């Protein structure tokens, strides 16, 4: 699968004019993905980008790989067919908070629990963009939009908690204004064998501008974001002086020296759940980085091995075997 010729980011740019709004966070995400694809060294011909419907789902048109812009919410289902039918392909899914968590929530849940070896990028901008500004399943309660003039009455999904609840084997979060962090996270996700879920805080300049500014704005982010790095102490702050100490299911904001070491490979997803809800506690930072990275058999591998096993046991079947089977009798 790996290509011996060196691939560059440019190789992954398609000839299509990118049509997101000027200033949209999606541009940076596209750039980061193209860089990571080059770094992974997987040929364009062996890479497939699959998407549903929404702004983020235009993604495949801008990649020079194989691509499938499917129907609303169903990208995980189509990707499941692609990956199961040909496990050699590198399969990516681009989806959004509406596509992935509203209309397609069911398929997202099932691709994660089945552990197909695909990389899922969920562009979360907490609003429906392509339909021009209605609240989404990740919009905070009270958000005023065209369809919630007095404020949204829905309680939002926490995408990380959703993925963990589906027993996903790789769960991470990043944000669109930090290219380095995005590239690092996407690469880890792509290299993970199994279903990888990455939530991206993505700004919608038109309908929800600044929705993540309270945590990602340059002026505040060092103190407001905690990057979960497997095997590293949970330290944050402009002066790297603050830390998170874990006691049972509680997190305590402490000094850097008391910070617990983050274990993303714990068999239980409970610590990752604790982290995913940490920012609901006053004074706590908002966690990004890798919440969970565990190993499990992939769906397509087991599916293919069952077929191989059956052929090994009884020989490859022919149409004759199929038809002239069971109890037959002759009429002269």
């Amino acid at each position, binding site marked *: 699968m790996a290509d011996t010729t060196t691939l560059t980011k440019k190789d992954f740019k*398609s000839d*299509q004019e990118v049509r997101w709004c000027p200033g949209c966070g999606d541009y940076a995400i596209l750039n980061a993905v193209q860089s990571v694809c080059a770094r992974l060294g997987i*040929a*364009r*011909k*062996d*890479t*497939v980008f*699959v998407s549903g419907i929404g702004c983020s789902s235009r993604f*495949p*048109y801008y990649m*020079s*790989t*194989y*691509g*499938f*812009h*499917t*129907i609303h919410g*169903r990208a*995980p*289902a*189509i*990707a*499941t*067919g*692609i*990956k*199961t*039918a*040909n496990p*050699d*392909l590198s399969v990516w899914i681009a989806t959004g908070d509406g596509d992935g968590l509203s209309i397609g929530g*069911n*398929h997202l*849940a*099932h691709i994660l629990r089945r552990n197909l070896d695909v990389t899922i990028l969920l562009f979360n901008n907490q609003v429906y963009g392509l339909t021009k500004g209605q609240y989404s399943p990740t919009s905070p309660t009270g958000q005023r939009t065209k369809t919630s003039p007095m404020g949204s009455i829905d309680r939002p999904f926490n995408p990380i908690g959703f993925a963990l609840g589906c027993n996903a084997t790789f769960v991470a979060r990043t944000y669109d204004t930090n290219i380095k962090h995005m590239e690092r996270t996407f690469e880890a996700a792509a290299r993970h064998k199994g279903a990888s879920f990455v939530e991206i805080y993505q700004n919608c300049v038109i309908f929800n501008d600044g929705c993540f500014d309270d945590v990602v704005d340059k002026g505040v982010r060092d103190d407001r974001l905690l990057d979960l790095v497997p095997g590293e102490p949970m330290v944050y702050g402009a002066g790297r002086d603050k830390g998170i100490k874990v006691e049972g299911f509680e997190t305590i904001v402490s000094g850097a020296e008391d910070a617990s070491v983050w274990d993303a490979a714990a068999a239980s997803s409970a610590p990752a759940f604790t982290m995913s809800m940490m920012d609901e506690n006053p004074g706590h930072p908002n966690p990004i980085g890798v919440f969970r990275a565990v190993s499990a058999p992939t769906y397509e591998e087991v*599916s293919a091995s*069952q*077929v191989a096993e*059956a*052929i090994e*046991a*009884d020989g*490859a*079947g*022919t*149409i004759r*075997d*199929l*038809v*002239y*089977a*069971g*109890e*037959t*009798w*002759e*009429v*002269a």
Partner: protein
Amino acid sequence: MTTTTEPGSDLPLQKQERVVIRFAGDSGDGMQITGNQFTSTSAAVGNDLATLPDFPAEIRAPAGTRPGVSGFQLCFSSIDIHTPGDNPDVLVAMNPAALAVNIGDLKTGGVVIANTGNFTEKDLKKARVEVNPLEDDSLEGYRVIKVDINKRVAEALDGSSLSTKEVQRCKNFYTLGLMYWLYSRPLEPTEEWLRKKFAKRAELAEANITAMRAGFAAGDIHEMFQGRFEVPAAELTAGTYRKIMGNQALALGLISGAELAGLKAFLGSYPITPASSILETMASFKRHGVVTFQAEDEIAAICAAIGASFTGSLGMTTTSGPGIALKSEAMGLGVCVELPLVIVNVQRGGPSTGLPTKTEQADLLQAVFGRNGEAPIPVLAVASPSDGFDCAIEACRIAVEYMTPVILLSDGYIANGAEPWRLPDVDALPSFEARFEAPRGEGAAKYMPYSRGQRDERPWAVPGTEGAEHRVGGLEKEHLSGEISYDAENHEFMVLKRQEKVMGIRASIPTPTVRGPQGGDLLILGWGSTYGTIIDAADRCARAGTQVSTLHMRHLWPLPDGLDELFGRFKAILIPEINLGQLARILRGEYPHHNFISFPKVQGRPFLSTEIVEKVSDILER
């Protein structure tokens, strides 16, 4: 034919041409197994046959109640037959509910075999029967044979290590043994089957065999019957045969179709009555390279199949009525991306959840027209259980040759029905190998995903092919390049192109042939599972001195060429359908100058031949 285990019977043996038996009991009584065993044994002795299982949607409705009644009707004969028969000659009723539900269908003068052991006060009450029908004159006109099967089974298995409950579960095999005696069938095939089925619990196999032998012996000993019957082997066309059920034939045809196309079969499916056994069957054929995916829902099932086709497998999905509704959007995607895809709809009673275990043909208009936008999809329908094999292969052919989704309609009656299948010459099956685009080196002409071949099909380039990287999707595509296009002229061009492509399938399908006189007063036209009943009705008319012609349509969209001329040869065209006249509506639209008479019946059951015969005489007498 040999009958064995015979305790010196001296009762007269009468020949019969054709017999219809209905086994009816509680859904826990094993009536489906009993019926299936009788069917297999009859097939093995060379009878022609047709079956009609009829079971409740509930797995186990309250025992002894009318909704809990499960039935299995089969017709076996020494002559060519096409239907499981209108009215049974024999009704086996395991309890009062089974008797009450089924007695109305029994032929006048028919035989009722009733298990008196289950006609207690309590049983009558559960069945909401006030007076025991075995003790008043309500069964006058029928021959009633009363057997306390509960007691007889207990006696036969006296001293067995089985619990009382397990002993009583052998009742159906006692009954089967009794029927084997009555119709001079051998016991060996069922004995073999039992030993295989209960390989791990030999005592259960032996108990059932003992019960069956006791039932067989009882025919003689208890002098319940005045004679035994024999239904000699039918004169079938020479060849190798096996018994086949509709869903099973579809599964074998889908696997074969993929193989004939040189593709891997990928089935994405979600369990739904009455289609589930296609998924179950295909899941058991992994050594044929079949990949089955049990999806989280109907939508994911078809979407995964589309994904698999995108990578170069032959994507398939199987479902029934409500499932088809859920798949509509993805079918439109299939039309847009122009990938091969086979969609099987085993129709059931609708609308909504409707009658899950009953049959209907009411999804035809939905299959032909039921999508948003101009989204043409070819449609064909299965005529009988064994026809599923050929139809599935034909659906695969069209899908691959024309790069299109194809809808294959079957129904609940065919799905669970069985008949002898004369096995095809495997080497003579059609060949329609799929072609993939070859890799392109640098400097080669650009791959144009929406350029067209001879049949207007687009070229299929699968991921992994160097130089053919491209994007597909549900947005309108530009002719040739396949890039997104909102251009007005291009949209109309593409709408027409997709229509033209599907209508072009006509060039590859035959004009159906008329059975009987090639012109005249009346043509009976059918599609799908009315096939057997229509033939049967026409034969009855012929025996009564009226020649009527019949025509069966496998391809329903596009309609084959030559129909206009063909219809013109008849004064009237009668179309019996298990819907409110859907094919009639299509034909009236396409051929407005002919006299189509719609004959609808929507009761969740197949037509009876006699209903069609009566309709024919009504029309001809007018």
